[in-house]
């Protein structure tokens, strides 16, 4: 929305028709030398329209448009937006995303488990406001990708960059949970949660998933374990991010729901099974609903002054008029 800081100054616009008359239509206006071109008392003549007369007409329009814009600038145009500031802290959430090779199993649309997981995480993040969200990736190792932040653009950019296998060939679920818990331990948020997204075959890392889940619980962190995949034999296709080689094959034991249930039980958390895209989305919708705290916010009115733009545009239009009249039409005054 646009407003003017001093709207009373817009009354100056009322002077413009009078000025236009005085400059262009007043019979006694100055700056011209008049002399008869025909028989005394006869009718004058109107010069035929030419490109030059059209150009001069255009320059007149540009000039007065410039004047109008300068008057608007004088009145202080401002763009007004409303900004919501949160007075309270939201929920701290760490997403722990499996990047092991089995996440390349093609039993999820549009490509594989990993892409499906990435998509629901993206939608989940986009629906949150003021909840610091972080990201941990794990394969054979685990690493913090994004600390809990409300800079969701940054978070989503990093999420888009994540690739299967970049954390090595393995599934260190315990390490992933431990890293997430470490980065939530000092948080003073009213609620803290870890959302683990994996197909559940823990085969790497020095920390057992159950131990990490218990540690998280002792820090007051809610642990949600989301199992993604199925126990059936399924095709797998993974591009090695280091060599660019495409690895294909099939995997039979690419999902272990019991192991995941056990992790959730150890941490007194909740386990959700997602055997399809729809189920995965439903799980995240549930977590989205559960992990909410009441938030107080303040609406601020932010005013961006736009006068500089108006002054520049008005100045340029008037300079165009000057150039057309003096340079092209060769007016002498």
């Amino acid at each position, binding site marked *: 929305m646009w407003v003017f800081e001093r709207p009373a100054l817009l009354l100056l616009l009322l002077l413009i028709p009078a*000025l236009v008359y*005085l*400059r262009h239509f*007043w019979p*006694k*206006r*100055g*700056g*011209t*030398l008049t*002399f008869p071109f025909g028989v005394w008392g006869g009718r004058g003549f109107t010069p035929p329209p030419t490109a030059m007369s059209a150009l001069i007409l255009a320059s007149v329009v540009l000039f007065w448009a410039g*004047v109008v814009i*300068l*008057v608007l*600038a*004088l009145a*202080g145009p401002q763009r007004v937006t409303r*900004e*919501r*500031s*949160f*007075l309270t802290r939201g929920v701290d959430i760490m997403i722990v995303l499996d990047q092991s090779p089995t996440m390349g199993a093609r039993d999820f649309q549009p490509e594989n488990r990993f892409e499906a997981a990435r998509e629901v995480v993206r939608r989940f993040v986009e629906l949150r*406001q*003021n909840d*610091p969200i*972080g990201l941990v990736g794990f394969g054979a190792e685990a690493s*913090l990708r*994004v*600390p*809990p*932040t*409300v*800079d969701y653009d*940054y*978070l989503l950019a990093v999420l888009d960059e994540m690739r299967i296998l970049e954390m090595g060939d393995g599934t260190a679920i315990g390490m992933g949970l431990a890293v997430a818990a*470490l*980065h939530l*331990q*000092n*948080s*003073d948020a009213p609620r803290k949660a870890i959302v683990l997204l994996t197909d559940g075959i823990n085969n790497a890392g020095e920390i057992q998933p159950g131990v990490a889940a218990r540690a998280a619980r002792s820090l007051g962190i809610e642990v949600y374990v989301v199992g993604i995949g199925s126990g059936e034999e399924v095709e797998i296709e993974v591009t090695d991010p280091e060599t660019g080689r495409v690895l294909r094959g099939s995997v039979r034991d690419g999902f272990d729901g019991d192991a995941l249930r056990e992790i959730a039980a150890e941490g007194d958390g909740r386990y959700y099974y997602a055997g399809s895209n729809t189920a995965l989305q439903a799980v995240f919708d549930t977590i989205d609903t559960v992990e909410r705290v009441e938030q107080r*916010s*303040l609406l601020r009115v932010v005013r961006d*002054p736009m*006068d*500089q733009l108006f*002054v*520049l545009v*008005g*100045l340029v239009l*008037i*300079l165009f008029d*000057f*150039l057309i009249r*003096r*340079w092209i039409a*060769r*007016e*002498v*005054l």
Partner: protein
Amino acid sequence: MTVESPRLLLGLVLLAPVAAIQFRAFVKGRTEILTLGVQWPADQVIRLYTVKWFFSTVAFNLFLVFAVLAAANITWGEIPVEEDRAGLDVAVVVDVSRSMLAADVQPSRLVRSLAVVRAVSRQLPTARMALIAFKGDAITLMPMTGDTNALEIVLDGVGPALISAPGTNIEAGLTEALRSFPEGTFAHGAVVVLSDGEALSGQIDDPLSELRRRGIPAVVVVAGTSEGAPVPGPDETVLIDEDGRPVVSRADTAYLAEIASRSDGSLFRLDTPDIVSRLVDELSGFVRVREQEGFRLVPHRRYRLFLSAAMIALLISIGVRGIRWRDMF
């Protein structure tokens, strides 16, 4: 008095071509009046024409000058605006150009800078921090977060190899810092810049105006000394110039002082013994003052004064041309 958009003052060079066009028109006008002037008293018309040309030209040129000054956004004095905020978000902008490896501040400018950042973050445990590195380009190494463990990890990996683009583009660093302040935050904001100020490039007008508009001061720490030190090369030697002499990097305080002053921030030196406590006092102090007073002072913009003068000059320019003098011209 401060000019918020000094680049726009370059618009004043337009006066030269405008004046040249006006003078050419004047010469042509005189000639044409003399050619056509058989039926008028030529001296009177020429005199009138000269006077009208002079005043309308001066008025039009004054219009140009005042309009450019209005656009350049000149400010003086301050006015209070309500500031209902609490807490602190700090965007730390670290120069990772090779000159930051110079050892005139021990063990090196960069290592000392990172140690200071680490110490400040420990003494401001409730503040959220973002970390931005800049060289020829800028990258956010850590978004705004209250996770102090993450900052410790990220600081360990900061070095010139992070960014391949050569140069020291402070504009990119400040722009990225501005971006790192999340929307909807209730906290006060501050930017801490650590740089040797040498060969800084980029146009800082826009980011500094934005910092000032949003009430975010830039606390600038000059890393290095005026005596300088050789810049280490990649192979543990020192960089040498085309004449075979070691490249010596010296801290350039002037540009950094301008950044601090134009954003209502302050300037510190990295080699000050109690630099950490000074920075902590500065950051927590400005938050305390704003929270106590409930308002902050912003520059009083004076564009309306200059624009009014420009409009009056334009009106005079039109009037001088448009009003017939002595019933003749």
